[in-house]
């Protein structure tokens, strides 16, 4: 079976090298990826610590640990260990077999002369040796195991070496090819041990081959392929995305969104077997019955509740009721039910991402807002319409009620509450006996550390231009500062910070954003969301989008920001009030005019910190921009330079080109379509700062 031209590796000299190379190729990257700390925002952010422990903190901790266990890279670790063990074995084999390989006869070594010694030196050395090594001169020495035989053999060797070296041809051969006989025919071998192809082993090798190609390869490829097909871009099961799409409705509020999320298939993995309707009746009674003190029944209208009860699938009914129990922070008096209550929330948040992307595809402002608000509710474990104050530790509905004092329909946000003088706040809560001093100070310390992004200025601009011209690439620049919620004596903004200065014309690195990407520095990340009831760590993200208020549609899809370019807190933990710059790019409408958008900025983790602002984009006619340019006294660029050509293009020096450009403009359908065609979320935009 073996080919006559190829030698198998009989002494096992080479196949360890081969295997070592292959396993190293696999093992080293695996090790690097195993040991590298995760770069996810959730793992790098700081937390807002407080000594507040919510009810069932042990269950929430248990859920967190469960997630950690899932995230642990066990398989990778095992692969790494096996790889290194194999490497070690191969290195051992190499070392062991290296000793058995014979050395090539080297006349220089035998004579003990330098390689570049010339003939004269060699002859001289040989004579010197003959004085001591010649059989007539050398003495037997049994103690050193030197007999007549060995002396003779050695002398023969030395003479041979001398002859070889004094012969011009042989010496040259040796110097050129490393072998006295001249150029050696090199042989190609197969770095596999011979036993693989010997009679008995053949069928096992064939079996392994068949297993590898016939079973393992199709299995892994199939698993990978169907694995990628099972999940959508948002890492949600395809089936769930389909169901949520069917449940989607433009006009439904957060209650509807939560209903839609409950259709996700992911919950089936949690509520398997008889878990699917265990304790359902108890749960429904606790959460939904009119008489119970749970606030969920007040949040849900009669219609919503009917819809929930009418659900045919008991698993889905349980999921939805659990979600409401979580959002209403309802005590369920049952360990497993409470545990499940905390387990469903993170899943729902993941599904909510799929819902958000569907809402964005529809482009309806109200639906997108509902989706974002649902994310806030899920992270803070608060029902829709709850007071934002309940995000603070120890604040329940009654506490929030007392804190708000004015029994109005709208709730106070945390920052509004913190603006009330401390004495008054205390009077409402501590003096009235609702919270004790410790609880109050815990809540206040958390409240003062929740960062709020305060927009100072928002404007549109085109890099390098004075006006926004039709169809140009507009930057929406948002300047703002992080305040702690309790900030009272906020320093004035330095007006210089609110300007957005274009980089120098020649500064290509700055224009492309390469210079300021701060790859060396870590981007600044606000602390993780303070969410004691949510069984995961969550890094807050800020979504910014522009909406057309007249049509109730989204004009510029959201850009998401999770890291910022300037520190929020200094070393001692005090706020720096640095002005942060956020930028998003989109295509300007093709017609001149002024367009009014409503800018929404929504933090996905905290309730009541949304910013809504009207911004106007003034698109000037292209001719106006030219006029200004002509008024300015710029030295006329050379006709053959690029600038000159650009100029002649702009001023109509090349009429045919210009006409074509105009045509291009008019072909871009209507205003909205053009604006919407901009790509979706891009987290990197904050990196290119002035």
């Amino acid at each position, binding site marked *: 079976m073996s080919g006559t031209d190829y030698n198998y590796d009989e002494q096992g000299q080479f196949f360890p090298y081969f295997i070592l190379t292959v396993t190293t190729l696999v093992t080293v990257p695996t090790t690097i990826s195993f040991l590298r700390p995760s770069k996810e925002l959730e793992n790098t952010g700081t937390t807002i610590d407080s000594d507040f422990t919510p009810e069932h903190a042990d269950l929430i901790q248990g859920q967190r640990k469960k997630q950690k266990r899932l995230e642990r890279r066990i398989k990778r670790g095992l692969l790494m260990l096996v790889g290194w063990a194999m490497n070690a074995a191969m290195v051992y084999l190499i070392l062991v077999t290296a000793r058995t390989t014979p050395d090539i006869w080297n006349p220089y070594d035998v004579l003990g002369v330098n390689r570049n010694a010339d003939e004269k030196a060699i002859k001289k050395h040989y004579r010197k040796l003959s004085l001591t090594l010649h059989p007539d001169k050398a003495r037997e020495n049994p103690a050193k195991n030197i007999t007549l035989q060995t002396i003779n053999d050695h002398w023969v060797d030395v003479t041979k070496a001398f002859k070889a070296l004094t012969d011009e041809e042989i010496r040259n051969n040796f110097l050129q090819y490393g072998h006295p006989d001249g150029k050696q025919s090199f042989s190609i071998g197969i770095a596999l041990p011979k036993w693989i192809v010997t009679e008995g082993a053949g069928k096992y090798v064939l079996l392994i081959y068949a297993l590898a190609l016939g079973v393992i390869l199709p299995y892994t490829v199939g698993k990978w392929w169907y694995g990628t097909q099972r999940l*959508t871009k948002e890492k949600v099961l*395809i089936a769930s995305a*389909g169901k949520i799409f*069917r449940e989607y409705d*433009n006009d439904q509020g957060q209650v509807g969104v939560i209903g839609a999320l409950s259709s996700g298939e992911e919950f089936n993995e949690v509520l398997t077997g008889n878990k699917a309707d265990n304790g359902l009746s108890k749960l429904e009674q606790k959460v939904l019955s009119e008489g119970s003190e749970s606030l969920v029944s007040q949040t849900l209208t009669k219609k919503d509740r009917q819809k929930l009860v009418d659900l045919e699938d008991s698993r889905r009914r349980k999921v939805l009721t659990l979600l409401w129990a979580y959002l209403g922070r309802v005590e369920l008096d049952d360990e497993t039910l409470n545990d499940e209550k905390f387990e469903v929330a993170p899943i729902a948040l993941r599904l909510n991402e799929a819902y958000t992307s*569907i809402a964005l595809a529809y482009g309806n402002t109200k639906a997108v807002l509902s989706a974002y608000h649902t994310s806030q509710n899920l992270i803070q474990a608060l029902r829709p319409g709850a007071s934002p104050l309940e995000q603070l530790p120890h604040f329940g509905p009654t506490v929030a009620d007392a804190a708000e004092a004015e029994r109005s329909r709208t709730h106070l946000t945390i920052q509004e509450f913190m603006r009330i003088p401390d004495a008054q706040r205390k009077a409402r809560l501590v003096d009235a006996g609702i919270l004790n001093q410790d609880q109050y100070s815990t809540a206040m310390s958390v409240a003062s550390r929740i960062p709020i992004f305060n927009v100072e200025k928002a404007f549109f601009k085109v890099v390098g231009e004075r006006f926004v011209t039709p169809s140009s690439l507009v930057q929406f620049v948002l300047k703002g500062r992080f305040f702690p919620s309790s900030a009272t004596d906020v320093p004035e903004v330095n007006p210089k910070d609110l300007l957005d200065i274009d980089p120098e014309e020649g500064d290509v690195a700055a224009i492309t954003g390469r210079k300021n990407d701060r790859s060396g520095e870590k981007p600044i990340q606000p602390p993780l969301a303070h969410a004691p009831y949510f069984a995961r760590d969550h890094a807050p993200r800020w979504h910014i989008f522009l909406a057309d208020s007249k049509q109730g549609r989204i004009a510029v899809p959201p850009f998401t920001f999770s890291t910022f370019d300037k520190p929020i807190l200094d070393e001692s933990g005090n706020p720096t009030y640095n002005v942060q710059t956020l930028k998003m790019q989109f295509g300007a409408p093709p017609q001149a005019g002024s367009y009014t958008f409503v800018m929404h900025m929504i933090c996905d983790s905290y309730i009541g910190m949304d910013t809504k602002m009207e911004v106007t984009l003034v698109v000037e006619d292209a001719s106006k921009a030219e006029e200004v340019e002509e008024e300015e006294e710029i030295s006329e660029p050379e006709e053959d330079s690029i600038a000159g050509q650009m100029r002649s293009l702009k001023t109509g020096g090349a009429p045919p080109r210009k006409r074509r450009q105009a045509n291009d403009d008019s072909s871009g359908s209507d205003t909205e379509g053009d604006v919407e065609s901009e790509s979706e979320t891009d987290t990197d935009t904050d990196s290119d700062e002035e």
Partner: protein
Amino acid sequence: MWPFSAIDWVMLTVPIAYLVILIGSLGVFSNLYRKRKAATAASLEPWFPPHLQRNVYLSLLHMEDPKVPDSILKAALLRRATEDIHRIVQVRNAKQALQVLLQRGSVGDDLWQRFQRAEKEIEEELRDVVNEANAFAPNWGQTIFQSASEMAQNNQIRERLSEITSKTAAEKEWWEKRKVGIQSDFMKELDDEKDGVMVEKK
């Protein structure tokens, strides 16, 4: 016999077995795969729930004894058309969004297939309604959907209205309470002021 005795039959079976296993497994795979695909295609959930209004209309139409009067049939047809309006609006709204989502990979292929089936179904349904309407009165088919959409809008507005009016009782109650609260606060403030004034006078 010479040619056969020289053949090593056992060794010959090896390549033949190889070919048989290879082709056989490929055949089985393709067969199973196609069957499964057909089964999933057949078991795709319908996009819309059963069309109740159409069923009502059809059963009324086929009632022989006693024969249903034309006016009732027409009303049933209008109801059917109204439901169709709801559906067509849903389909039209969903189409663009679904295309975007499909491109981005946010939804699966089978949803798109289900959607296309629903689209075709609703087209057929519309054609059927037009034909039926024309059978009742010539050229009614051209206007039936106009009336149906007006009916649908009317319904929507009424629902919205009733939703708002259903809130009045609760709102009223809340306001009464608030009013009483404000009043008592004012009285208290006035009393305090009086006391203060009296103290000052002393």
